[in-house]
């Protein structure tokens, strides 16, 4: 177990190193951030002064080595756009992103799983196709549209929920639904096919023969045995939710990492972009690691590290 963990951690480090190196150089290929910092009327001398103050006049390789040194000291640097330490900026954004991702997962789980089970049990019937239609419609709606529609209906007309912002549970409802709708279809489809697979197995037939009723069968046997694909999908979805909430966060003015990423990329806030990418890489790596470990808990047949 620990040898397995160690191996995965090492892999994670190598991946992360590759990712930050790529990000470091790609960003610097895209242009000069000082052009955005200074007013249009700034002269060439102003630009030179700003560049040297921020250290962008140094050779690229020197900047890169300094950057790696900072990384080794867990120093994420300073945002010259937001004028604050990057670690502080991330710390303020991470809880928001986790809240939203949690809310979205909850929506996706609470609707997607039952929908998948019902679709599997009613396979071939009209109701199954209806549910699939609704689920796909939810997934296909662009968030910038569904988000604004929700805001108009529940925020402006009915005034049930605050149109945007953060702070209370009520604020979390609409962004969670908007984001959750995207994952919901994935869950419904995965659950459906996993349950259909299980339905064809011998133990299900035996259980039915013993007179086990469907609800009990689903709860006791089917869900647990269908859980593996759902868990691996969750690992993928979590990284999607962390990175892909960009539009939802922008529409609902939700101050999460997605919004931060877009703004930082647009304003050439190198230090922030690097940190966010690094965080995203680690989040993905660890979500997958967690999924691997969870497999063994759910299904004892899976043995880690090839024992």
């Amino acid at each position: 177990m620990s040898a397995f963990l160690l191996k995965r951690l090492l892999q994670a480090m190598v991946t992360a190193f590759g990712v930050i190196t790529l990000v470091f150089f790609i960003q610097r290929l895209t242009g000069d951030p000082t052009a955005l910092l200074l007013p249009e009327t700034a002269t060439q001398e102003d630009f030179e002064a700003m560049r040297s103050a921020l250290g962008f006049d140094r050779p690229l390789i020197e900047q890169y080595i300094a950057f790696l040194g900072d990384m080794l000291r867990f120093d994420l640097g300073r945002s010259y756009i937001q004028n604050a330490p990057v670690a502080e900026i991330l710390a303020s954004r991470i809880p928001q992103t986790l809240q939203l991702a949690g809310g979205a997962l909850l929506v996706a789980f609470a609707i997607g799983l039952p929908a998948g089970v019902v679709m599997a049990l009613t396979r071939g019937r009209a109701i199954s196709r209806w549910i699939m239609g609704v689920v796909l419609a939810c997934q296909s709606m662009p968030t910038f549209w569904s988000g604004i529609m929700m805001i108009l209906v529940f925020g402006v007309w009915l005034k049930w929920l605050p149109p945007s912002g953060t702070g209370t549970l009520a604020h979390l409802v609409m962004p969670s639904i908007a984001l959750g709708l995207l994952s919901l279809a994935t869950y419904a489809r995965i659950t459906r096919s996993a349950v259909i697979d299980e339905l064809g197995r011998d133990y299900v037939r035996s259980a039915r023969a013993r007179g086990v009723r469907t609800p009990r069968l689903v709860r006791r046997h089917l869900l647990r045995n269908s859980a593996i694909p759902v868990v691996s999908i969750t690992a993928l979805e979590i990284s999607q939710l962390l990175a892909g909430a960009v539009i939802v966060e922008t529409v609902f003015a939700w101050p999460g990492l997605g919004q931060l990423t877009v703004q930082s990329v647009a304003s050439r806030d190198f230090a922030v972009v690097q940190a966010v990418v690094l965080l995203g890489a680690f989040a993905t790596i660890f979500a997958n690691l967690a999924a691997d470990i969870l497999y063994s808990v759910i299904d004892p047949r899976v043995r880690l590290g090839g024992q």
Partner: protein
Amino acid sequence: MTPKLNLLLASVAAATLALPAMAKDLTVDLSGEPSSLDPQVQWNPDSYYVYRNIFDNLVTRDNDGNIVPQIAIAWEQVSDTEMLLTLRDDVTFHDGQKLTAEDVVFSVQRITDPEFASPQLGQFNQIASAEAVDDVTVKLTTDGPYPALMAQLVKLSVVPKHVVEEVGAEAFNAAPVGSGPYRFEGWDRGVSVTLTRNDDYWGEAGPFEGATFRAVPDAATRLANLQAGTADLVVGLDSDGAAQLEGQGDVKALSAPTERVAYLGMNLDKPPFNDPELRKAASMAIDNLGITEGLLGAGEVPMAQLSSPAHFGYAEGIEPWVFDPDAAKEIVSAKADIAATPATFATAPVFDQRIVQALQQMLNDVGFNVSISVTDMPTYLNIVRSEPADNAELSFGRWSCACQDADGIAYPLLHSDSNWSRVNDPELDKLLDEARVSLDPEVRQDAYAQVHQIVRDNYYLLPMYQAAVLYGAASELEFTPTANESMFLNRMSWSE
């Protein structure tokens, strides 16, 4: 309806009506959070909308655009390079310390220190030194005669020397202490900044006990917040958004012409626009009125000079552009082979792409061969500031120097020394230089009038219109938008 219910409804209605009189706190939706609350660091609307309320400036502009006293109550040009400012003696910072000449000197020295690397350095680096003559008198020395000094000092906020020196730049930015009508209350990163009224303010502090500036990046969401009543003032409205607000009783759109001048820039070193005749044809191909009224419709004013009535140096009597596509076609067809040279129109997403596309269409309609190249902002800036040979044939810009002086736009865009400029005209250079250093307003005004005429006659670039700014506001909010896009809480109020 029962009498009891009637009574209940009446009291509810009365309570609702009474709300505005209770001086409700103000909520403003900006497009982003401030980059800095230290007024000497970043200079962009999302930042200065907020910190201008925490700090006082040396001087300010009233709603009509006149430079009026704030911390400085009087100023006198004692020599070509020396300005003597007399300060108020009744100003205290939010921590109770008195504001003195030392703080003003410190503020000037801090923002002009190249080591401090303020993005605003270029606006103040002509100030060579600042010294406190006594507690309420400051002498500023410029490195030459500098007529735009007072216009620049409108943007110079006074920071408390003792606080900045004690806590350092980073902590000061996170929790600024000023002397303005509102004191800093809290900054919820990525979400909002809250201010509370400074009841000890030396001037009018305004009616709101508190104000919250929120970061709401999506324009449609800001509009929804306004309509839902969760925001009282929102920025970044376009004319479509303004049209949506029309006919709704509790919200309104407010607009004002700004000091931004939009123009079409042309590369004078490359075909087709190295030919004055073809530049003239381009000017005739553009339907300026159609763009300002049909496309934009927020109160933009067509201009044929690189200034607006909001600027010193605006000249009356510059002939408007003539929209005559048929005449343009004629000129172009006589030089069809040059006109057909492929021309790149460099632009970036921040510019209104409707205008860029309209311009392309109008130019191509008369026979030019224009294609649009959209890049992100830094790449765009690199392109338009590069040497003529590498530069795009066309670009669209909207300039503001935030100084309301013709020098701020005309010099960088027209003087051969500037890397923004594609013009190389010794006569123009001479006039721009003269106007830049003369302390005689009449001499300057006359020089700029000539500059505008030369640009108009030679079609060096095509000024298009004075941009407007649109805000959405709760209908009971009294707010006068200004040309310098200020947002002073102490100039707003709730109407009865």
